């Protein structure tokens, strides 16, 4: 069970409890990531106007020092419980979001007012969760600010990969989603956590660099190409001022989004020359099939035609399915089914183990198989019907967790839609915003395909979308575990239960009050 032992001094003093260690770990990751992002953004800012260089470098340095000190002073537990690792994951993401929001305020990208605070928090969350629903538009010469948002997206994409490939299969649900088999002399991608993290960094980094080069070759300026590559590889979708205004750039974006929506395990096998086996992957087949069928249906339901129409349809469909969310013009009259298709694709999402959001294809497949199994059970109640994933029998625990994830996914979706509808959005926009938020997709569109500017929404509505974005980015499950664990810890620490009992029994509160 002991799988995660964070570094730090263990020579003196008592070791921390599991949840304290998890909290420290989250803080170290958040401070380190935000510090690194601020430092690099500060250096990048030198290329542009250079207004924010000093602020970014100083804050980045302070955050880095804070992370280092905390790591050096921590006395982590021998073993951190699975649930606490998930709590740490959530804590790290939330920490990065808060720190990036602080950086946006510090650099003046958002004014230090109540409304500016909401803008900064909403944009930091959108960037950190790779959701293309943002309102801040840094000036073109504000390289630091632009890089900050693009970098937050890239980190968000990396975080999603870590959660999907290196954390959930080891600590929560989905052992089947990991690639650990050495059968036939294979070299698995995730034999253990450390290797998984290393391989994720290598593949995500390589995909990002290759996309950068491709954008540059297609005609984008180097800095714009970098921002576009970060938005594409992370499925973030906010190009922060860089434009996808030529057909060459759009084709590169289509390819880049397609790769970003592909499972890292598939890319790993491709790199290691095992492409032949890839054709057997049901999930990959469905993914490609969805892109092709979705493009054809989109062409059918909009009045686009010719090469431009095909490109536009492929761009919109790939952008929705991979939950990247690059905006595109409607390009014609949309039939009523076109926005439903886009919403449906965004909620389906790309492959499990990719940077994309949504419920993801493999989970949908598991759900479909569970549904068929349940129907067969109705006919033959005593039969033993197994669900297979990639030739292996799926664990009952995994199936149960996927079903629960679906229940929670839908619950969060409806709850978010309800809150934003009460906040003033019309019904179609409220449903669209909720689907895009929990799928970490975007942008929200009207029924005729026009992109809605979230700046026109009330602050309360934008704030209401943030929890859904975070929950969606964390594949739903860890967020609820974190909330449950947080409530338990707070309740235990504050001894609410004991005080409550004491009050009910009419005894004085205190350490000895609860026991007799």
């Amino acid at each position, binding site marked *: 069970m002991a799988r995660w032992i964070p570094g730090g001094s263990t020579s003196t003093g008592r070791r921390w409890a599991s949840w304290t260690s998890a909290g420290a770990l989250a803080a170290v990751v958040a401070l380190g990531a935000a510090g690194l992002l601020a430092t690099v953004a500060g250096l990048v800012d030198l290329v542009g106007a250079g207004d924010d260089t000093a602020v970014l470098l100083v804050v980045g340095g302070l955050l880095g020092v804070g992370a280092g000190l905390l790591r050096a002073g921590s006395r982590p537990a021998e073993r951190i419980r699975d649930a606490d690792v*998930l709590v740490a994951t959530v804590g790290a993401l939330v920490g990065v979001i808060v720190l990036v929001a602080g950086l946006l305020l510090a650099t003046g990208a958002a004014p230090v007012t109540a409304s500016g605070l909401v803008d900064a928090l909403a944009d930091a969350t959108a960037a950190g969760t790779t959701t293309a629903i943002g309102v801040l538009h840094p000036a073109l010469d504000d390289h630091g600010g632009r890089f900050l948002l693009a970098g937050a997206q890239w980190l968000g994409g990396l975080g999603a990969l870590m959660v999907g490939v290196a954390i959930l299969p080891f600590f929560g649900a989905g052992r089947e989603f990991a690639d650990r088999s050495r059968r036939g002399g294979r070299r698995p991608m995730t034999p253990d956590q450390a290797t998984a993290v290393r391989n994720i960094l290598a593949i995500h980094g390589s995909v990002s660099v290759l996309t950068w080069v491709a954008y540059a070759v297609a005609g984008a300026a180097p800095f714009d190409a970098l921002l576009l590559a970060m938005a594409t590889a992370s499925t973030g979708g906010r190009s922060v001022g860089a434009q996808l205004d030529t057909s060459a750039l759009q084709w590169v974006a289509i390819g880049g989004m397609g790769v970003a929506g592909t499972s890292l395990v598939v890319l790993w096998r491709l790199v290691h020359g095992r492409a032949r086996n890839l054709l057997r992957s049901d999930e990959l087949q469905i993914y490609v099939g969805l892109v092709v069928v979705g493009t054809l249906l989109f062409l059918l339901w909009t009045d686009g035609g010719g090469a431009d129409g095909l490109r536009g349809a492929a761009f919109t469909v790939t952008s929705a399915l991979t939950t990247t969310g690059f905006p595109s013009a409607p390009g014609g009259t949309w039939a009523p*089914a076109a926005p*439903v298709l886009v919403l*449906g694709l965004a909620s389906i999402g790309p492959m499990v183990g990719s940077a994309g959001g949504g419920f993801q294809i493999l989970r949908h497949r598991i759900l479909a198989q569970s549904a068929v199994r*349940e129907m067969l059970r109705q006919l033959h109640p005593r039969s033993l019907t197994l669900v297979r994933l990639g030739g292996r029998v799926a664990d009952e625990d995994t199936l149960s967790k996927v079903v629960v994830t679906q229940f929670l996914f839908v619950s969060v979706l409806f709850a978010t839609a*309800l809150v934003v509808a*009460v906040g003033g959005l019309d019904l179609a926009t409220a449903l669209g915003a909720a689907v895009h938020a929990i799928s970490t997709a975007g942008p929200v569109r009207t*029924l005729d395909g026009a992109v809605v500017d979230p700046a026109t929404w009330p602050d309360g509505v934008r704030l209401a979308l943030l929890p859904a974005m975070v929950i969606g980015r964390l594949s739903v499950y860890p967020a609820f575990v974190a909330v*449950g*664990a947080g409530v338990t810890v707070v309740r235990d620490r504050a001894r609410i239960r004991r005080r409550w009992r004491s009050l009910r029994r009419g005894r004085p509160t205190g350490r000895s009050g609860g026991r007799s």
Partner: protein
Amino acid sequence: MERWRSIRRRIPTIPLPERGVAGRGVWAGTTRHVSGLALLFVAAGMLLSGLVELGAGDEGPAVLLAAAITTVVAVALWWPTRPGALDHTAVFTAVGATWVFASVLGALPYLLAGTFAVPGRPWAVVLADALFESVSGFSATGSTVFGAHNPIEAQGTGVLLYRQLTQWAGGMGIVVLVVMVLPALRSSGLGLIDAESPGVGIDRLAPRIKTTAAWFWLVYLTLTLVVGVGLLVAGMGPFDALAHALTTASTGGFSTKDASIGHWDSAAVEGVLVVAMLLGGASFALHSSALRARRFRYWHDREFRAYVVLLGLSAAVITVLLAGDGMGVGHALRSAAFNVVSLGTSTGYGNATGTGSPGDFTAWASGPQMVLLLLLVFGGCTGSTSGGVKVMRLRVGMAHAYRTLRALRKPRALLPIRLGPSLLSESIVERIAGFMVVYGLLVVGGTVIVAALGADLVTAFSGVISALGNMGPALGEAGPTSSFADAYPTPARVVLTVLMLVGRLEIFPMLLMLVAPYRRVRTASGHALAAVQDRLVRSD
């Protein structure tokens, strides 16, 4: 004990014919036997309506002709067959086939009376509309294709009564009726009732299945009569009171007026209906307990408590939101309470007096509409006549989710799911989880198809949820003052017709009715292939 014995004695028993089993197996015979018997009840409803029509002198004998045709088909199915022991496949096939037969033949009165034969309409559209209205009736959905082009109030008394009767018969279940009069089903009858009844299994109200079925109908009849009297006292005319009692007890929602309950614009009528709809959406086992043993255990039942709290909370939230939007508090409370209970119990009456009036919820702000959309999903209690997912399933779903999350912190703990004082078996939890998965997939798939056929996002999404939950009205273009004929293109209405039928039988029976023969074919072809292979190997 003596009471239910006397009731049992009063139930007529239909003698079985001496003929052998027709068809290729017992299951085929049983399916036809049950379907034929159910159609006899449908024909009886048509006959009654036809006689009323003749008495009122409204139209020609169209409904009587439909009754005659249905009787002939019913006898042709029932007479040469006899039921046997039922396996799971046969249960689903029998129930599914019964509902398909009833729905198809139930469209005859509309077709023969020319109800939807508006000049200029193709026959396929007329056929689709008749079938839609028939399925909407039997499934107690309440969606209608009557509208400004073809008003309800222009129809004859017989057709109107028949329309209400379809909902009354479908609300409790026509197979339950069959089980009540069929002596030879024995324990298989429980499977039939279970497959037809909403919810997760049925409460056995008496040791004998036949008596259980009789008790369900007795409670149902009592509720109908009480509601009828209540409406009469509240100011409705006798025919309208009877007609609305039939569709309130069944939580169906058909009305004899184009403006539905808004026609009366009466707080008293709405008040009676709110209480009646609440009772219709509650478990009939609770009503039975109250009726038989004078034990009013409603508030002890956790599902009922959750159901009432949910509706009360929704009504309160909507009242606040409507009042915040400028509607007077009185109007807001009345509109909110009526529409929340109407949609929350899957009845589907509307109290809008016209487009844009306080009761027209499609004219409300999006917040209250979203609450109504959620209620379209929830539905009433298990063991009631209401549709939707049901409060109990949602409670189990939440408990299952909570347990799964908790298990991560306590990996070795045994965490059973409780439902009141008793533990819920894992098989039921899995069944409910499976139901929710299939429900979700049907909603998503249905929305895409209906939208592809021309409905906008909100109309398609809410229409599919409404059809699958047998609710009645939907949002968007299909509100309480709208006709489904105007809101959805004809192919989309056909899809909704199928979904209403699937939803009424709580998804599995109708789907399995389609799957079971396929599996038989597959097994047979598998055996044939194996035999061929075996022969080839031997010849080698």
